[in-house]
């Protein structure tokens, strides 16, 4: 197990380095950060001076080495746009994104599993058909449209829920949470639903497929023959065995939810790292963009690690195989 984790850690390090290199190379083509830092009044020689001071005239490998050197110390420089340390910015924006991500993952998981089980147990019913059709629509509409649609219905027309922002927040040390106030919780609903829809559909279809598969297995038939209650068969035996792929997908999707909440955060003006990133892209705020990509890579690496370890916990067969492989 330890050897396994160590090996994974080394792989992770390589992944991070490659991400850093690629993101750094890409950003050289996004545009000139200086262009958005200066006004039309700024003289050209001043622009040149600024480029010099920012180190933008140095050769690529020197800039990259400097970036890696700083990154290893947890130091990502100063945002060109907001003129604050990047690490501080990301840390202060993180709670918003994490709360949104977990809320949407929770919605996706609960409704995904429930609807998945329902459609698997009653495959021919009208309700199942309706759910399956709706899920197809849900998965094919772009997030942006869903968000704007929800805002239009629930904020503009019905005026039940806020259309933007995070509402009132409370400070718990460095963690700024919106979960403790009513306006904070109300603000969470629409963005969380928007962000969860895709995952929800995915989980639902996965659970349904797995469940249908499992219900055809021999041991379910034997269990039925033994006269076990429907409830015990469906939830005790069948559902439990469909959960391994669901855990994998949920784990991986949690990563992408955090990483790709960009659209949802933009639509709802949710003050998380996603909207920080998109604001930075437009003005070519390279330090923030690079740090953000590194951060996302880090999230994926950590989540993959956790998912792998969870496999061990859930599936005994893997444990045996894992130990065998370790020898």
């Amino acid at each position, binding site marked *: 197990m330890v050897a396994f984790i160590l090996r994974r850690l080394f792989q992770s390090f390589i992944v991070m380095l490659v991400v850093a290199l690629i993101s750094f190379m890409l950003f050289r083509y996004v545009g000139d950060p200086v262009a958005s830092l*200066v*006004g039309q009044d700024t003289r050209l*020689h001043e622009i040149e001076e600024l480029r010099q001071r920012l180190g933008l005239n140095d050769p690529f490998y020197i800039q990259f080495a400097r970036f890696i050197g700083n990154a290893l110390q947890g130091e990502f420089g100063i945002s060109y746009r*907001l003129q604050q340390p990047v690490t501080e910015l990301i840390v202060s924006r993180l709670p918003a994104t994490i709360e949104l991500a977990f809320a949407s993952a929770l919605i996706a998981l609960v409704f995904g599993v429930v609807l998945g089980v329902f459609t698997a147990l009653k495959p021919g019913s009208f309700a199942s058909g309706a759910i399956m059709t709706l899920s197809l629509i849900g998965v094919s509409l772009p997030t942006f449209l869903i968000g704007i649609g929800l805002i239009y219905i629930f904020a503009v027309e019905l005026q039940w829920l806020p259309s*933007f922002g995070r509402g009132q927040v409370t400070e718990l040390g460095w963690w700024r949470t919106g979960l403790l106030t009513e306006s904070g919780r109300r603000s969470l609903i629409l963005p969380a639903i928007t962000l969860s829809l895709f995952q929800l559909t995915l989980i639902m279809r996965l659970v349904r497929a797995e469940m249908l598969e499992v219900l055809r297995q021999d041991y379910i038939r034997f269990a039925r023959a033994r006269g076990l209650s429907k409830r015990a068969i469906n939830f005790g035996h069948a559902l439990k065995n469909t959960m391994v792929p669901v855990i994998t997908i949920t784990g991986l999707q949690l990563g992408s939810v955090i990483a790709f909440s960009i659209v949802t955060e933009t639509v709802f*003006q949710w003050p998380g790292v996603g909207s920080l990133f998109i604001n930075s892209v437009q003005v070519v705020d390279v330090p923030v963009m690079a740090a953000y990509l590194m951060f996302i890579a880090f999230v994926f690496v950590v989540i993959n690690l956790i998912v792998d370890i969870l496999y061990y916990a859930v599936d005994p067969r893997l444990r045996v195989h894992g130990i065998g492989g370790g020898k």
Partner: protein
Amino acid sequence: MRKLLLTASAIALGAAVLPASAETLRWARGADALTLDPHSQNEGTTHTFNHQIYETLLNRDVEGNLIPRLATEWYVKADDPNVWVFKLREGVKFHGGQDFTAEDVVFSLNRARSDKSNLRQLHADVADVVAIDDLTVEVKMNGPSPLYPNNITNTFIMDKGWSEEHDVVEVQDFAAGEDNYAVRNTNGTGPYVLQSREPDVRSVMTVFDGHWDEKPAVTEIVYLPIKEAATRVAALLSGEVDLVQDVPVQDIERLSATDGVKVETGPENRIIYFGYKFGDAPLKSSNITDKNPIADAKVREAMELAIDREAIKRVVMRGQSVPAGVAMPPFVNGWTPELDAFPAPDIAKAKELLAEAGYADGFTITLDTPNNRYVNDEAVSQAVVGMLGQIGIRVTLASRPVAQHSPLVQNSETDFYLLGWGVPTFDSAYVFNDLVHTKDGKYGAYNAGLYTNPELDEKIRSLGTEIDLDKRNATIAEIWKVVKEDRVLLPIHNQVLAYAMKSNVNLEVHPENQPLIRGVTYGE
């Protein structure tokens, strides 16, 4: 008895004032201020934010006129044309309680023209700033500078003592990775005091009780940057915000028709124009490889005749633009209706001119356009591509975010480009200096087409120091005449600004897009 009466009337007065004295204005716009350090960035959104908290010596009203603010009078010293005298307002206090004096003005003007300040270009001709007494400041210029007061409408006055105490005497050097106290904290003389600030999320300001001017109707401002236009508009419709700036043109009509919401529009101080490459060398992006078609005046005339500005206004801008025949907005000194006139489109004549110039079959050229900077910038360019196509000029459109577009223009790496230009000094010289004068050193920074005319250059330079205003205006008129006849720039329109608000809120559009919330009033 008398005391009782007084108390009673005080209560009555209090009761009458109370409803109006607690008005919160929730104000949404597309972007947030970059920094609160008033001299660090020369950028509109940042200035607008800081205008609520800090004050300047002079200001501009909604018509674009200079009006007194912290200075009550300003004039050129009688015996020395190189010196501007500013008389300061009495009884002004900073939010921290400090008195406002000439020392603060000297300190702030020097800070604004220091090396790291982004405003220093506006103060480039200042030689020295001296406090004569507590309420008089003299600004010594390097030579006669008739327009200096126009340059200082965004130069905010900070408290010297406060700046020293918090170690912000120097402007933040963000390039060196510096963070400073003034980026997030303020101490101005303005009508509002900053209460809290979360960049990109919300900032709260409340009315400053010690302010020298009349108390504003709005007592609390909640400033909410909302990037996504659709969300911003939805927030107004759902009643969560009271005022929305940066309203997309396509939403204006719908918002105007909505109950409880109104839209104020007004011309912005920004001209949108096309520029092209002069000079004899062939264009990089053209199929004519032995000469430059743009260099031929007939070709430039043909291009103008092919463009239908009214159609662009109607179709692309949904009526929200002011077509222009001269490359300056109407507020600017030097503007006349005659200059602003433009020819009706005439395809037949344009084709004829092209043929006369030897391009009967037309030619190809690439048009560089930004796609996230000006109102419908890419769509305007697309329209022009189609219009030029009608006379045989086959245009390839290269659309980029402004961060990639700007370097092309600054380095003159474009043959044909769209650009917008604001004129913060409200004077033609500002346009000439950067867009018309030959590109060299201090001048012609955005003359991407590399137009050059030594005779004009000389006239342009003379504007900087000419104090006889009649003579100066005559020179301006002469320069514009040549610029227009030569078609140095191809102006399309002036942008229109729109603010949407709840129907009981009154706020006029400011030509520099700097609404002052202290000017907001409430109707029925």
